[in-house]
C-alpha cells in the first residue's frame, strides 16, 4: 500500500546523475542555434527533469491514485492557464485584420 514503499538510496543517486546529465544537456543545446526549436527543446528537457523529481523524489510513482490525481490536476490547470493565454498572443500575426473580408 501507499506510504510503505521505500525508494532505495541507489535509485535516488541514479535520479541524481540523470538530473545532472540533463542539466548539462540543456546547457549544451542552448549553445547551439536551433532557431524556433531552442525553447521547446529546453522546455522538454526541463519537463523530463521535473517528471523525475515528481515521480521519484516526491514519491508520486508510489503514491495512492488520489494523490497522483491531485498532482496531475495542478499541472493540468497550469496547462489551461498557459495554453489559453498563448493561443491569443501567439496567433495575432497569423491573420492581420486588414486581410479580413470587407463588409
Amino acid at each position, binding site marked *: 500500500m501507499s506510504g510503505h514503499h521505500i525508494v532505495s538510496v541507489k535509485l535516488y543517486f541514479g535520479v541524481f546523475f540523470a538530473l545532472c546529465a540533463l542539466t548539462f544537456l540543456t546547457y549544451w543545446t542552448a549553445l547551439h542555434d536551433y532557431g524556433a526549436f*531552442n525553447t521547446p527543446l529546453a522546455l522538454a528537457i526541463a519537463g523530463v527533469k521535473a517528471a523525475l523529481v515528481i515521480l521519484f523524489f516526491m514519491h508520486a510513482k508510489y503514491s495512492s491514485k488520489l494523490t497522483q490525481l491531485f*498532482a496531475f490536476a495542478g499541472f493540468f490547470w497550469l496547462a489551461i492557464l498557459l495554453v489559453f493565454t498563448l493561443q491569443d498572443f501567439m496567433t495575432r500575426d497569423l491573420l492581420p485584420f486588414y486581410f479580413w473580408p470587407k463588409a
Partner: protein
Amino acid sequence: MSDHAHSTYGLVHHFDDLEQQKETGTLGMWSFLITEVLFFGGLFGAYAVYRSQFPDAFQVASAQLKVGLGAINTIVLICSSVTMALGVHAAQKGSKNGIILGLIGTLVFGAAFLVVKYFEYKEKWDHGLIPGYHFNSHGTFDSLHAGPAQMYFALYFVMTGMHAFHMVIGMILMFWLIAKARKNYFREGHYALIENFGLYWHFVDIVWIFLFPLLYLVGAHSGAGGAHHG
C-alpha cells in the same frame, strides 16, 4: 516496520490509524502545492506573454546573466533535493541521525544557492540592471530594447526573488524540523511532517528547473553572452 502499523504515537483522535492520517496529510500537502503551481504559473504566464511579444529584447537581456552561475546553482539545488530525499529515507528507516544529517545537508546546499544568488543580484545592481529610474544607466541596451529588457529584468527579479523567498521559508522550517528530530519526535512511523516538507522542498527545486532555461539560456547562443561589461 510491521510493529508500526498498530502504533498510536502521534496519532490524532479524528483518524483511524497512522496510515489514514499520513495519506490525508500527503493529499493536503499536494493541494497546497497545486496553489503553488498556479502562483508561479501566473508568473510563467506573464513571462510567456512578454517574451512572445519581445523575443529579441528577451534574448539580448538574457545574455546579461551568467549562464555558469545559473548552471552551478541548478546542480546545487539538485544536490539539496538528494539530501532531502535521503533525509526522508532515513525517517522511513527510523534513523534519527540520518534525518538530522539529511536536513543539515539540505540547509547547507540551500544556503550555498542563496550565496551565489546574492553575488548575481549584486552584479546586476552594479551594472544598472535593476528595473526603475536607474535602469540601463550604463547604456547596456539601445533605445529599441531598453523598455522590454526592463520588463525581462522585472520578471527575472520577481520570479527568482519569489523562488529564493520560498527557499528562505524552507530553511527556517528546517531549523524547526532539526530541533524536533533532535528530540526524537520522528519515530515509530510518525514522520509525515518530514515527508511533506520534502514535497515542498522538491517543488521549489522544480520551479528552478524551469527558471534556469527560461531565464539564463535564452541568450546563450546569441554570441552576446560576453557582454557583461555594462
